[in-house]
């Protein structure tokens, strides 16, 4: 098939899914935090608030777009676009699954596979900081400026440990192309321990995984590193002057960065789309089991509902889940869905960790943040890198 | 095999001690200094056993290439380390004896100032000595050669507060310059003639060369090398620095001026032996396996080497007869033993002289360390006339010194005898008169060594209490002589064992792949005569200094002229002063300073200065202080340059 046409199709699919994920991540976050704090969370709009994102979008789009008089116009407008653009570009090199053949067309579940994928993502995420910094500066507002300063300093400081943490598994996997990286993690030790980055010999990369996650939190300005937008010190930090869609695009950028970081972690440390235990032990049935179980749960709750409309909604969900379970049993789509399932499962778990941390941990103080970066993360990452290099050199 | 580790370890020691030594505690300094040398000794052993040197291996040279140092035209000098059996012997001697002496020094220097400095220098010396031994080409050898010279200078002048020490250091350095000048000329000749400085290639080329074409250049090279060797190994006429070098601390005298550095010349000549064997009048031309070319000219470099060695041995021995400073005595005996080695080299018994080099390293190091222990016992006193009767106070030192003295005196089956007899036999093969002189010298050696021994240990103790020599010993200068601590006498004991048994290490056989032995069993009586000479010397010394101590006085009075001549070391120093030093000093003061420097150079310098000031006054306008104006000028220049390239350069 025509190369450009194929790319267009793939792009359409990926972007569509990605946007919905971003939108619903918001919903998931609110739900999770609500339940962590023993609340219910959004449930007015649509069943269990499932339409909340839509409502939010409508609200944000239709809101009045305030343009403060004292801002630097050009950069004030430019900043959100920079932020969201660079956040979204990163997705273009992330592989979601193996190379598949659909209707005689052989293609990879990925927009494009660069030889230097990791470096590319790294550079792009490095550029993302301009959005925040510019927003802070252009708003011409003390709080915003503080936020911008903080975020740029924080980004620079945490890029180092992040890079070092990334370098360690690259030493073992010996490639920069994300697809190669995932292929390098295929297979199992002793037939059941997956060869994922975090288990990979000669030196399991569990430490760099943790370091990477921490640095990732900082890079995405998430709690406990959300100094740039620390509500109770800086009102809203760098986007204090922003409203409506521009404000929304900052949020989009943040969520997109979260997803990117989770994808990278999955690809480098959690073996991408490779199942957690071999096919021959029936790992292919895991999704079926999960969906079936959730369907059963729905039916059970429908049987004795907590709220009146559960009687209507939950059976519907149950049926949907059953459908999904059935879908995973169909051979013609199985080979597409299984890798996707594993990949998205891992990504979602990491995203859940993001939200979970936000719900539990308090915020750092700024000097603590910096000291943590330079006196803990950096040395540890270095040591980890050295050990890895040594072991790789000794047991090639 | 990681040969580079061998020299690097002492270098590390030097860096650590030299940089942080001031802040380190003495035990730490000891640990670093001794530990580094011990480690490199162990590494040497491991390397050699890995190369099978102890099990009949290492027939060929084992070489490691590190990087290309100089590459200009056809000349290509690289930093290589090489090990063959000769190097193996040297390595064992240097690191082994070196380690022992380091251990000893920790005790001997315990009360000295500049402790860390001392050990830093000592380690640095080890580093350069190992470079000298390991280097696979002339240039590396030269690097090590100059390095050990530097360290010897630093260590002789270690007590730099005392004039005589610094003077001695300067003397050693300057005298060595003469030798090094010859050596460097030789290196230039080699490089010019062979386009390489690598030993193996040069030697193979030499072996392959017909004599009558190339003998001339070889003669030149070998004579110049000899000049270098005489400088470093204290041979006539450049031996004068070594006795003064005793101004340094005793471990230094033992390590540098007896065991290792001064033998560098011998090593160097042995290393370049093929060149010597291809010069006019070399014994190779007579030996059965010779190339059959007729002898060209009456006397060649080998003869000169032999004669220089023999003369040195004889003269130094005679001087040694009348010295009263115990270290001076041993210094002259070192010179004379080195003379023996040169004699051996000259008569073509290379393996024998390397053998003697090793045994000499053992017993002479032992003698010096013993002397040091004695001096330590008498709280810094060095004059033997103020000693005596020490056998009561320092029994261990006495026993060990006795071993050393017997060894050097050529007592049968001891190390000294084994090697010295080999040399003498070879000398007899070459020319009987050399043998007889050598034997006579051996007798004298035995005499003065035991003279020192008896004067020190027998009779009554004549030293006055707390005779504080300038060694900073005052902090513990109590009257009674006292035995040295264990760290000092244990190395002594080890060395004593070595100098007793060292003769049974069959170095000549070990070195056969490099220096083939002449076949033919020499006559037995040669050994007997040599031994008899040695024993006679001992007996004479006993008679003179134990039985009737008055004899020497009367003898000295009867042969007054000879005695004064010997006692004043043949007035050589005075001679050199009047002939060389004075004219040079005067000339430089009158001509170079008064005329050249003041008139010419200063004039030029001032002229340039004023001109520059004038021009600067003009150019100052350009210094507007605006960076961008400078940048503009730079750009202008660039444009011109590009214009040049574009219109001239690119049109080729």
């Amino acid at each position, binding site marked *: 098939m025509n190369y450009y046409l194929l790319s267009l199709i793939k792009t359409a699919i990926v972007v569509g899914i990605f946007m919905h994920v971003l939108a619903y991540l918001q919903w998931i976050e609110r739900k999770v935090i609500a339940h962590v704090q023993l609340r219910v969370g959004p449930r007015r709009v649509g069943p269990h608030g499932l339409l909340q994102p839509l409502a939010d979008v409508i609200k944000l789009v239709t809101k009045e777009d305030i343009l403060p008089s004292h801002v630097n116009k050009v950069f004030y407008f430019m900043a959100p676009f920079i932020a969201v653009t660079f956040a979204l570009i990163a997705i273009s090199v992330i592989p979601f699954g193996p190379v598949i053949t659909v209707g005689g067309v052989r293609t990879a579940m990925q927009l494009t596979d660069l030889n230097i994928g990791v470096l590319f993502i790294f550079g792009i995420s490095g550029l993302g900081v301009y959005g925040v910094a510019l927003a802070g*500066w252009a708003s011409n507002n003390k709080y915003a400026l503080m936020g911008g300063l903080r975020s740029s300093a924080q980004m620079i400081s945490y890029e180092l440990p992040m890079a070092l943490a990334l370098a360690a598994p690259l030493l073992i996997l010996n490639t920069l192309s994300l697809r190669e990286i995932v292929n390098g993690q295929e297979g199992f030790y002793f037939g059941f321990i997956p060869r994922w980055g975090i288990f990979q010999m000669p030196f399991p990369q569990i430490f760099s995984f943790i370091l990477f996650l921490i640095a990732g939190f900082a890079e995405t300005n998430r709690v406990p590193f959300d100094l740039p937008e620390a509500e109770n010190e800086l009102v809203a930090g760098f986007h204090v002057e922003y409203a409506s869609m521009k404000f929304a695009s900052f949020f989009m950028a943040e969520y997109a960065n979260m997803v990117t970081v989770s994808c990278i972690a999955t690809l480098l440390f959690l073996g991408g789309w490779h199942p957690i235990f071999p096919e021959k032990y029936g790992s292919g049935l895991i999704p079926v089991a999960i969906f079936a179980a959730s369907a059963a749960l729905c039916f059970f709750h429908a049987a004795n509902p907590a709220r009146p409309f559960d009687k209507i909604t939950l059976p519907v969900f149950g049926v949907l889940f059953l459908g999904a379970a059935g879908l995973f049993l169909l051979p013609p789509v199985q080979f597409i869905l299984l890798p996707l399932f594993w990949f998205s499962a891992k990504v979602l778990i990491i995203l859940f960790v993001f939200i979970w941390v936000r719900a539990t941990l308090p915020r750092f103080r700024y000097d603590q943040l910096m000291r943590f970066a330079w006196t803990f993360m950096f040395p540890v990452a270095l040591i980890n890198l050295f050990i890895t290099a040594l072991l790789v050199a000794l047991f090639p | 095999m990681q040969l580079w580790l061998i020299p690097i370890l002492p270098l590390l020691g030097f860096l650590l001690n030299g940089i942080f030594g001031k802040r380190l505690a003495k035990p730490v300094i000891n640990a670093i200094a001794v530990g580094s040398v011990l480690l490199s000794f162990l590494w040497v052993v491991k390397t050699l056993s890995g190369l099978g040197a102890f099990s009949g291996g290492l027939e060929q040279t084992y070489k490691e290439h590190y990087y290309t140092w100089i590459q200009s035209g056809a000349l290509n000098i690289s930093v290589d380390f090489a090990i063959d059996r000769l190097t193996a012997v040297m390595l064992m001697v240097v690191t082994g004896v070196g380690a022992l002496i380091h251990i000893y020094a920790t005790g001997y220097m315990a009360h000295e100032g500049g402790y860390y400095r001392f050990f830093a220098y000592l380690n640095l010396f080890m580093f350069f000595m190992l470079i000298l031994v390991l280097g696979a080409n002339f240039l590396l050898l030269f690097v090590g050669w100059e390095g050990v010279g530097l360290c010897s200078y630093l260590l002789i002048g270690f007590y730099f507060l005392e004039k005589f020490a610094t003077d001695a250091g300067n003397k050693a350095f300057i005298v060595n310059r003469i030798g090094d000048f010859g050596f460097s000329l030789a290196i230039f000749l080699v490089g010019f003639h062979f386009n390489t400085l690598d030993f193996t290639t040069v030697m193979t080329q030499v072996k392959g060369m017909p004599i009558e074409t190339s003998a001339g250049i070889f003669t030149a090279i070998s004579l110049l090398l000899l000049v270098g060797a005489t400088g470093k190994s204290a041979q006539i006429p450049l031996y004068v620095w070594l006795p003064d070098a005793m101004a340094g601390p005793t471990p230094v005298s033992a390590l540098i001026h007896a065991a290792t550095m001064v033998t560098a010349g011998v090593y160097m000549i042995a290393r370049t032996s093929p060149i010597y064997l291809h010069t006019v009048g070399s014994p190779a031309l007579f030996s059965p396996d010779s190339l059959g070319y007729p002898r060209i000219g009456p006397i060649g470099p080998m003869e000169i080497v032999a004669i220089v060695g023999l003369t040195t041995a004889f003269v130094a021995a005679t001087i040694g007869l009348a010295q009263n400073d115990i270290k001076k005595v041993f210094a002259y005996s070192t010179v004379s033993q080195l003379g023996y080695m040169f004699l051996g080299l000259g008569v073509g018994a290379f393996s024998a002289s390397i053998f003697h080099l090793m045994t000499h390293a053992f017993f002479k190091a032992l003698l010096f360390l013993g002397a040091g222990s004695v001096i330590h016992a008498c709280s810094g006193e060095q004059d033997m006339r103020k000693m005596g009767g020490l056998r009561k106070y320092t029994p261990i030192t006495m026993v060990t010194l006795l071993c050393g003295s017997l060894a050097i005196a050529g007592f049968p089956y001891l190390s000294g005898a084994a090697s010295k007899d080999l040399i003498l036999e070879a000398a007899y093969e070459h020319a009987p008169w050399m043998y007889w002189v050598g034997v006579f010298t051996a007798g004298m050696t035995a005499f003065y060594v035991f003279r020192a021994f008896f004067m020190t240990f027998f009779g009554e103790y004549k030293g006055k209490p707390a005779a504080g020599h300038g060694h900073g010993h005052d902090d513990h200068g109590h009257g009674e002589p006292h035995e040295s601590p264990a760290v000092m006498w244990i190395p002594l004991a080890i060395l004593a064992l070595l100098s007793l048994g060292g003769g049974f290490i069959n170095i000549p056989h070990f070195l056969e792949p490099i220096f083939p032995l002449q076949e033919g069993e020499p006559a037995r009586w040669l050994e007997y005569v040599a031994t008899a000479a040695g024993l006679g010397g001992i007996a004479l010394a006993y008679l003179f200094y134990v039985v009737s101590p008055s004899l020497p006085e009367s003898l000295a009075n009867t042969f007054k002229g000879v005695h004064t001549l010997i006692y004043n070391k043949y007035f050589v120093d005075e001679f050199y002063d009047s002939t060389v030093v004075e004219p040079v000093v005067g000339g430089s003061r009158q001509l170079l300073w008064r005329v050249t420097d003041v008139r010419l150079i200063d004039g030029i310098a001032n002229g340039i200065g004023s001109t520059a000031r004038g021009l600067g006054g003009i150019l100052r306008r350009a210094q507007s202080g605006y960076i961008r104006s400078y940048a503009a000028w730079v750009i202008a220049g660039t444009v011109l340059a590009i214009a040049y390239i574009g219109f001239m350069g690119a049109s080729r």
Partner: protein
Amino acid sequence: MDALLFMIFAAIAVICGINLVVQTHPISSALSLVGVMGALAALYLLLGGEFIAAAQLVVYAGAIMVLFVFVIMLLNAGTEKKMTVRPLGKYLGAPFLLLFLGMIAYVIQRILPGSSPVVFGAFQGGTALEIGRSLFTVYLLPFEVTSVLILIAILGAIVLARKEVD
């Protein structure tokens, strides 16, 4: 295709470069410099220097320029005053510059007359693999020396920027 891409990115680079010069506010200049760097990264990719392109993004755009922006924001540097061009510069500068450019163009034309046009993927030496290989074999010493240089730079920066403690 290659030519088109070259044109696009070259245009971006030149426009951003001009912007860098004419803008009076440092932060605008900084951003336009980032633009230049991005465009150059793309051009490096065209020339087969994928590693260098990534390094350009990471090091230059991602680190150095962020540092610049950070400092500009920290010092809150205002727009710079209108400068008084000295007559020399005013009347000599522009022609001189044009001369310079023309000359360089000329020289380039002379030095590489008919070299084959730049096609994407024609040169494979720029992959991370190749770069690493030559970096750790031929250029090992310079590489190590640069590490020392960076160390010194870090020390210098710390010493310069730290508060005076007395």
